[in-house]
């Protein structure tokens, strides 16, 4: 059966599969950034807007049922890279050893803090965990923002995949703007989500915060995009070849403007969706610029790792494609179903037992 199936799918050449998997890779990262943004954002703003335990519980309950399932998109992004582009996976993690360790610690800290936030009555422990949630969320969004800016800019990869970069070298102004942008988009996303999901003063406070932060996001997004197109080597190559790609940065700017407008008009859900659009389109703007490279080299383009060099065998890519075709729709269906399970707004009077 396996042989017949493989024969049937022979028209999927390895090059075609490498392209399909690059596309899927871009989609998976996009989905991850969208779905985790509001749980990261909730962690980022909780210490500043929740005035007591009741309001913390409201925030926690608004993201509690979802964050775990959402984080799996990140695991899929990493696992998918491992499976479809092992060379890229290996080099990406080895070159960025310390940032990846930092990301790991951020993920552990965030996960434990969210889960344990109210498992103990001691206000001291709750306070520590609230700041753990904040710190974890900050580290995750900052490291990912900085890392992706570096991917778009290119890593210092010399001939024969020798990495010449330094830890300090990763923190260029461009990367710092990218990191800051991700932190702020996430915070805005979290604020708007809290406004959508809760009743009472906490929602009002979050809404006010989003009105201001969405403006900062718009400004930073414009700076970041301008910097990308004007100041990053080889960024415009694909855009000159395929002008249709300009739709990504254009949509990023449009959604950022709309997010500001809708937030001001208190059309919160629309503002939330537009803010998610900003993340998605900025990520895709960058990813469209590096194709066909997955690890772009800032020294010379030909030193980077492209999708053909990094891809797994035809059989592996085919098997995984079949797996993805079956399970990704299934995952999307039950994750959406989970959102409908908890669609009521969370009131301030609610108790907690989790």
């Amino acid at each position, binding site marked *: 059966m396996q042989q017949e199936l493989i024969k049937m799918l022979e028209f999927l050449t390895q090059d075609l599969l490498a392209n399909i998997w690059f596309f899927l890779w871009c989609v998976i990262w996009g989905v991850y950034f969208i779905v985790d943004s509001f749980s990261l954002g909730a962690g980022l703003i909780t210490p500043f807007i929740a005035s007591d335990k009741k309001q913390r519980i409201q925030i926690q309950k608004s993201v509690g049922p979802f964050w775990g399932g959402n984080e*799996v998109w990140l695991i899929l992004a990493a*696992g*998918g890279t491992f499976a479809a582009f092992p060379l890229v996976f*290996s080099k990406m993690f080895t070159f960025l050893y310390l940032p*990846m360790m930092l990301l790991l610690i951020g993920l552990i800290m965030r*996960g*434990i803090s969210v889960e344990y936030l109210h498992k103990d009555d001691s206000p001291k422990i709750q306070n520590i965990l609230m700041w753990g949630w904040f710190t974890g969320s900050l580290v995750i969004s900052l490291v990912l923002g900085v890392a992706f800016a570096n991917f778009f800019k290119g890593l210092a990869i010399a001939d024969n995949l020798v990495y010449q970069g330094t830890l300090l070298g990763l923190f260029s102004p461009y990367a710092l703007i990218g990191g800051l942008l991700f932190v702020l988009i996430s915070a805005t996303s979290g604020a708007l989500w809290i406004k959508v999901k809760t009743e009472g003063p906490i929602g009002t406070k979050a809404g006010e915060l989003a009105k201001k932060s969405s403006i900062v996001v718009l400004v930073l997004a414009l700076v970041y995009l301008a910097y990308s197109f004007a100041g990053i080597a080889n960024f415009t190559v694909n855009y000159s070849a395929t002008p249709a790609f300009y739709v990504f940065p254009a949509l990023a700017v449009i959604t950022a403007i709309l997010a500001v407008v809708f937030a001001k008009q208190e059309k919160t859900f629309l503002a939330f969706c537009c803010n998610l659009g900003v993340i998605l389109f900025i990520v895709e703007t960058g990813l469209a610029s590096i194709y066909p490279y997955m690890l772009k080299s800032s020294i010379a383009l030909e030193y980077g790792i492209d999708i053909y060099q990094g891809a797994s065998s035809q*059989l592996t890519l085919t098997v995984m494609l079949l*797996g993805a075709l079956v399970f990704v729709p299934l995952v999307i269906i039950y994750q959406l179903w989970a959102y409908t399970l908890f669609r009521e707004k969370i009131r301030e009077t609610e108790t907690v037992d989790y």
Partner: protein
Amino acid sequence: MLELLYLSRLQFAITVAFHFLFVPLTLGLALLVAYMETAYYKTRDETWRKMADFWGRIFKINFAIGLVTGLAMTFQFGTNWGPYSEFMGDVFGSPLAVEALMAFFLEGTFFGAWIFLDRNRQKLKAFSMWMVALGTNISSLWIITANGFMQNPVGYELLPDGSKVIMTDFFALLTNSYVWYMLVHTLLSAYLLTAFVILGICAYQFLKRNDSEVFKRSFKIAVVIALVTAILLPVLGHGYAQYVTEIQPAKGAAMDAIWETGSSVPMYLIQVPDASTGSNSIELLGIPGLASFLYTGSFSGTITGLNQMPADEIPPVGMVFWNFKLMTMLGFLFIAEALAGLYLQKTGKLYKSDLYLKLMQWSIPLPFIAIIAGWNVAEIGRQPWIVYGLLKTESGISTVPTSEVLLSIVLITGFYLVLWALEYYLIKKTVVNAAGVD
């Protein structure tokens, strides 16, 4: 280079061992809590609800750590074992990606649903827990599929330049007999561990003279699971030992420190291996032919000794031997403890048997130790290979600055100690508080 190798291995051992302290309890408790949730839905018997609440609370605390420490594993393949990932990616990557698609999403999504659904939606709550249990158990299949390839490579082709393995047959990966031995053995040991944790916590409650029906019923269920799994494990282990000797002769011989090739090999009740002389410094009370029987299925069977194998393909014999002895000895203790528990419970003497209750309370760490020891046998016994017969462990490590690996070991270990303290504190509090209230 040597230092980097040992640091990378140490870091991997710490992260995987710590992760594996939480996973087995998650595997077993998920199924049991799902069962209790369903029983409550069907019968509306309040005891079932209280059981689901109590064990569910422990499950929640435990699950969170299992989840986050699992992330560390995925990361390490890239950060510390880059060349290994490149060598194995074509084969290893797909089970891992399918694991995320099939299992992690189920676990992650439905865990959130189960926690936040209230009892008015009991049917959905029970269903969600079954999905979590399904997810965790499927997850073990995929990770063992990947590990199975490292132990017994099948369905692959080595590139002529030896740089990597290419998958040629996906179903061969899944039907690898090593995978099925290991999967059943791992799941059984996870259920045994869960049963012993429950027995230990129940014993604590009985010692506190808490005669809540919650713990009486929990004990009744757990003692049966403990007995069945404790008996099945060595039965299965016997077949497994023969199989290991077939596919990895060095590991098989190291498990019983058999140095010289021979037939009718005895097994010694007291034995101390000494790798420096290539023999046992102490051999007492030999049972004729027993080792031959265990490893070949016949009392006169021939076993190849370690001294007849290439010296650079032999694992650290002492570590494999002592871990194996520790695991098997504990295995026999578990049978005895489960039998005693069942007898005391049937005769109604259980709640007054303070000695037995104390023993069971202090036995909680034992299955954890047994499981880590068993894992040590499987993984250390495979050395010096990281992928058996294909890639040596030393060729699998990333060349990153030793200082960075050292720093990350310190960071991770410190962090894990905090996590462990937190988990211990929260579970202990849950258990102690349950003694006062019903």
